[in-house]
């Protein structure tokens, strides 16, 4: 049963509709990420849950109670902010203790809890330091301990790692997940970083233009994107605008390509074929023979990514991206004429609507 529910939340700022009907439910102890490009409404949604802002319509229900009209200081939500938010006039310990003092807990109980939490976030030794004496990563750890101290009903994290450098970011996100699992606390995590969202969440909700495009487990989001936007936003995806031909095949750039998912679709229907770069097979074109079901093209670029190299192949008016093991890429030099193919069962099909497809450049976080 859902512990936290956002029910058709709407919020506009002037003429800008930041949220256009958000419905999500989060189970108790679950970790949900709101993922999307900047301006998609994810932070607005989180601020509504925290109570810093009120929805124009819709409701926020936690554990069966409607909290929509409850002010933020009576919601029992722990929040970690994007900006460093520790109180500069208090030490790390005093920061963590703040919520407990507000709740008038006994002194002995307070200091025991503060010590435990600072230990949990790995800062048992730094309790007496002021925020300006702590690094960015340490400040966010203290902020996490402070949010957890009040034993909140829900933990809200608003891009808590975006100000930190890459290495600390990866380390701290794993720790956030470890602590969250250990305490079993229901969590909403806002981020524009898909890798972050996919690596630590139970469920991911991808948002775009004030709406939720798709909610699912990280592997569902990656393996079975439900909309062209999700397909573009999560990972790298080849998107082939094709036409359904007879018998489980599509026509692309004048060639017939077998796609299992096309079975049962009406011939002539316009579809979007989605193929991950890692399943695309590229091999040198032999002596003139072009086997059925494969596409012919030219290698135009190599991008070295470590163990794999991303190879771009131009096929007619289209472009395909394939991730090839770096040790094998010497066999596919730039300018070579190649054959590209993929297993018929590995491609997904989406209806190609009338709306223009989102362009990758629009999706980049600021």
């Amino acid at each position, binding site marked *: 049963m859902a512990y936290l529910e956002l029910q058709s939340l709407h919020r506009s700022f002037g003429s800008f509709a930041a949220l256009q009907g958000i419905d999500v439910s989060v189970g108790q102890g679950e970790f949900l990420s709101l993922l999307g490009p900047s301006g998609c409404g994810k932070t607005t949604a989180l601020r509504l849950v925290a*109570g810093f802002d009120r929805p124009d319509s819709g409701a926020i229900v936690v554990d069966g109670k409607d909290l929509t009209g409850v002010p*933020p200081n009576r919601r029992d939500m722990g929040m970690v902010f994007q*900006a*460093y938010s520790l109180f*500069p006039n208090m030490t790390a310990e005093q920061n963590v203790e*703040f919520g407990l003092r507000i709740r008038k807990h006994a002194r002995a109980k307070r200091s025991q809890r503060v010590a435990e939490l600072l230990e949990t976030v790995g800062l048992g030794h730094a309790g007496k330091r002021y925020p*300006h004496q702590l690094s960015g990563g340490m400040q966010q750890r203290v902020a996490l301990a402070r949010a957890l101290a009040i034993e909140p009903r829900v933990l809200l994290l608003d891009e808590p790692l975006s*100000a930190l450098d890459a290495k600390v970011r990866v380390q701290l996100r794993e720790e956030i997940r470890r602590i969250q699992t250990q305490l079993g606390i229901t969590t909403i995590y806002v981020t524009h970083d898909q890798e972050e969202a996919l690596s630590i969440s139970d469920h991911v909700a991808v948002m775009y233009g004030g709406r939720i495009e798709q909610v699912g487990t990280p592997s569902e989001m990656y393996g079975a994107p439900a909309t062209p936007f999700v397909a573009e936003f999560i990972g790298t995806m080849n998107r082939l605008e094709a036409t359904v031909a007879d018998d489980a095949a599509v026509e692309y750039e004048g060639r017939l390509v077998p796609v299992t998912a096309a079975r049962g679709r009406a011939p002539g229907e316009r579809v979007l074929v989605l193929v991950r770069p890692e399943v695309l097979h590229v091999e040198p074109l032999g002596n003139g023979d072009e086997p059925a079901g494969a596409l012919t093209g030219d290698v135009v670029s190599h991008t070295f990514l470590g163990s794999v190299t991303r190879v771009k192949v131009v096929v007619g008016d289209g472009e395909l991206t394939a991730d090839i093991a770096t040790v094998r890429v010497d066999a596919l030099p730039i300018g070579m004429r190649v054959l590209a193919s993929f297993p018929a069962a590995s491609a997904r099909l989406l209806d190609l609507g009338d709306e223009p497809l989102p362009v990758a450049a629009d999706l980049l976080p600021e």
Partner: protein
Amino acid sequence: MTRRVPISGVVWLSIGVLYLLVPLLATLLFSLQSGANHSLSLGAYGDVVRDSQFWKTLRLSFVLSLETILVSLLLLVPTAYWVHLRLRRIKPLVEFLSILPFVVPAIILIIGLLQLYNGTIHAPLWFLEKPYTFLVTAYVVLAFPYVYRSLDAGFRAIDVQTLTEASLSLGASWRTTLVRVILPNIRAAALSAAFLTLAIVMGEFTIASLALFQTFPTYINYINQTRTYEAAALSLVSFGITWAAMLGLLLFSRAPGRRAAQVGGTR
């Protein structure tokens, strides 16, 4: 390794120091010549501190300063807080208003105020006849630019919104948030506002004189016109008081454990 100070620097510094010190020294020397035939004497200082009017007006001006500081901070801390938190749109307007007291000369201000309270609206007599009410009202207007601008700088240095939201999400009320989270972090700004106000009120002459109140500055003026050596001594004493106030500001804002910290935002 010692850094060498350029000669030109020494010269300019000396000129600056002389410019400030020579008048003070001259005043000091003059104030010490109150004995018979200009002989050295502390008599003028003795006369100053023995005059009951000196203590009475000094006390009055000091009390007026404290009252002005209190009223200004009570009015303007919540105002500046709210402007920074929720009304950022009207910031230019408030900034414009805060310049007005600079533009309007004190003499116009006092005539306007007298007209307002004694003509347009009929303020009660107790309000008009006591310095603690009438003068403080005028002084709060005079101090407005200094107090608002100091506080504004203080609020700019912290991430008001994030600190407020963090405090609220931890269960604190608005009052607790203001007292325990916001105030301690704008303490230095509030102190500098307080001492600027102190300096203004301790030296304000035009309004007090035109409204016929006997404050410390009007007393200094009276002595200036009537007694020669005592006037010089009094100038130095009032100078000392101002300096003591400034020194107080310096010491308070350096209190240990309260250093201005990196607050909010990214490094």
